[in-house]
């Protein structure tokens, strides 16, 4: 969610019971602005909070002029001092997917890779087991969550002919009927399914706003819950694949955003639970 609209947004996403204490809220208001100044970000997003066993990580992301470029991630343990995280690489993400269990809450905690296969153990000559630091796992988890369930409403961003992506200044919000449909929301990452659409569908697309994958064809179907809260004035989407991710949008206004409050674990039992 935009740092500027943090207080209002927290009120709207509080339906799941998770939020921030007044102390953290006040600290964020000041420290996110300072982040913008220090790192020269154009926009700062408060991404959310990953709860570890003994502490929590608060994550913020900074955006440059091209909003679709890889975002810089920063984390903090107390919402006051922030540290920049290294960008995520495919190996780190693959390594982190093998880890199970909660985050510990200590960024220098090292996970022992106890799932070394017996075959590999014979081949590997060095006795070093690949260890993973919690910081790297954090980076990988943020990347995974953004890739899988980071969403925006359709029409909120436009792609210019030069390829860069900006906010759409003429976006006035989705209507109530549109807001209840999953096809009005896009994943805010590199599109995967766009090329596979039939020519008929592609003819209807508007190249400036429909350049991302919509949520309609997410696997498994039903992994999003769409609800109207606060008496039908806010549309809240919650992801069931990464429980804790909440997206809100007030129809017919420009307010939208997503935030993650959770333990940073994927819900692999989803097919059994639907």
């Amino acid at each position, binding site marked *: 969610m935009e740092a500027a609209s943090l207080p209002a947004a927290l009120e709207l996403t509080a339906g799941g019971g998770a939020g921030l204490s*007044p102390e953290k809220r006040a600290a964020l208001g000041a420290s996110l602005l300072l982040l913008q100044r220090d790192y020269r970000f154009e926009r700062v997003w408060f991404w959310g909070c990953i709860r570890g066993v003994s502490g929590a990580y608060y994550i913020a992301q900074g955006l440059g002029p091209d909003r679709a470029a890889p975002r810089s991630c920063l984390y903090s343990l107390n919402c006051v001092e922030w540290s920049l995280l290294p960008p995520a690489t495919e190996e780190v993400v693959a390594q982190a997917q093998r880890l199970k269990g909660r985050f510990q809450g200590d960024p220098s905690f090292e996970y022992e890779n106890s799932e070394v296969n017996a075959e590999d153990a014979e081949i590997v000559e060095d006795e070093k087991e690949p260890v993973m630091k919690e910081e790297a796992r954090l980076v990988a988890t943020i990347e995974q969550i953004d890739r899988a369930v980071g969403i925006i409403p359709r029409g909120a961003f436009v792609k210019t002919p030069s390829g860069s992506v900006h906010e759409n*200044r003429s976006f006035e919000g989705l209507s109530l009927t549109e807001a209840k449909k999953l096809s009005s929301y896009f994943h805010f990452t590199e599109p995967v399914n766009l090329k596979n659409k039939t020519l008929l569908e592609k003819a209807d697309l508007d190249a400036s706003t429909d350049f991302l994958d919509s949520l309609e064809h997410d696997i498994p179907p039903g992994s999003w819950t769409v609800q*109207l809260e606060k*008496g039908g004035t806010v549309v809240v989407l*919650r992801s069931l694949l990464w429980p804790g991710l909440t997206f809100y949008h007030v129809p017919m206004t420009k307010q939208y955003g997503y935030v993650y409050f959770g333990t940073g674990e994927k819900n692999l039992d989803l097919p059994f639970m*639907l």
Partner: protein
Amino acid sequence: EREHGPYQPHEPGYGLYQPGYGPYDDQIPDLKSQMLAIQNAKAYLLKSSTTSGLNLYDHLANMLTKILDERPANAVDIIENISKDVKWAQFQKKMDTLRDEHEILPTFEAAEKRKALFLKANGEGDEELEEEIGETPLPNVMETAFYFEQAGIGLSKDESYHIFLALKKLISVQPIQTCRFWGKILGLEMNYIIAEVQYREGEEEEEEIEEEEVTEEGEKEVDEVKDEDEEDKKEDEPPKSTYKPLPIIPKEENGTGANKYVYFVCNEPGKPWVKLPPVTPAQIVCARKIKKFFTGRLDAPVVSFPPFPGNEANYLRAQIARISAGTHVSPIGFYQFAEEEDEEDEGGTGRNTYEENPDFQPLSVAEMVDSLSTWVHHVQSILEQGRCVWFNPFQKSEEEEEEEEEEEKEEEPDQLEQEIGPPLLTPLSEDEGIENLPAWTAHPSTDMIPQYAVAILQSNRWPGAYAFASGTKFDNVYFGWGHKYSPENHTPALPLPVQAEYPSGPEITETRDPTLEEELAFKAAREAALAAAEEEEDDDEEEEEEEEEEDD
């Protein structure tokens, strides 16, 4: 004005100006022809389009009017969008013969319901209010919400207040002794807001009587049907099966064990409260094996394996019972056991009642956070059987024992071992962790201002369950999806193995039908045997006759 040039050699424009090629030479010098050119251009702009009927002159005028009125920043970048908006506005007006009916959005209805919460019920006199202010079962939801908010837990203030009013309505409708906001469980289509309630003594009997009447009527119908069947069956009865189903473990009485509290749910504050049925041990046992999301509709079926005995209302009630038993904690010393005279119970089931301790001395927040032994469970844990108090299903009553002495004793099924759970008021330090994860995480709500910090407990086994303690105040709440945490993936129960077929032996093996030759051969052999037998008889008769003749 004076024309420029010809330039003198000392002037800067010298050499650049050539007659006929000056910067303004292509303009029509004559004023009249200039006016004509302007009118021609304007006539062209005023030409209506053949497809849409608009003309460019009006469109540009409208666009410029809009831009000058609104003065957007960087108008040149969004000029196409502005043009599109102006055209769209034009289009709308032309189709105005059909007027849109004023949309009655569902949001308006929802707002009506919430407004109804704020209206005072009719007939509430001021005198009644004064009496009630003294002792009211209504909990101070906003106060509890404040303490949880210090840890970042809780709903928005609006929603908390709506729940507050909804609870007040519930209390005015039902005869309630104590009431508490238990928490919120999220669902796919709608969410559940849950209130934990205890009825006033004597108010619950009405419902039990209704249940008994229903069962009596049901039994009468079953008896009638049985009589008819027995007449038919006496002639040809198939062999009775020797299968005896496992005895059903009865649910605990209302007001004890897992059914100590009654739960009311509603989807949104403003909607009517629905009472959840009491929970049975079979439902708890099954709920432990399945993991399903709630849809938000109480009558939705729960499709699972093993098949859940009930619908979503029962599953919800079972999960609530498990969460309450696992995560409702209080600071040590807040509750104490009531003094009992008889401490010996049958089978050592332990104490299951407690009362508030009037001499409770609260511990400091630092102590509450440092060690988990300063918190205790105040809800009985649920045994494997699904009940809080163990029930021996094979315990025979006195009548049955007398009958058995007279009749032959049938085979006794295996006796179940009595299950004993941890006693009430066990400290949390006794809770087992999950692998290397402790069962609870404790931390103060703030490090900045330790004087006013609140001790917060988060459950790791049931993510979403929280407890706070500050001085003499404490409370528990649950916000989540209603499932237990397991580091391993959920493996559903496998279906039972395929039943074995009847072992094949000679008595049921089909033999081949005899062929024609075999039948004829068999027939011939039989006739030969008969003929041989007749000859013997004839011989015997002849011999007898000869003997008789001889005698004569």
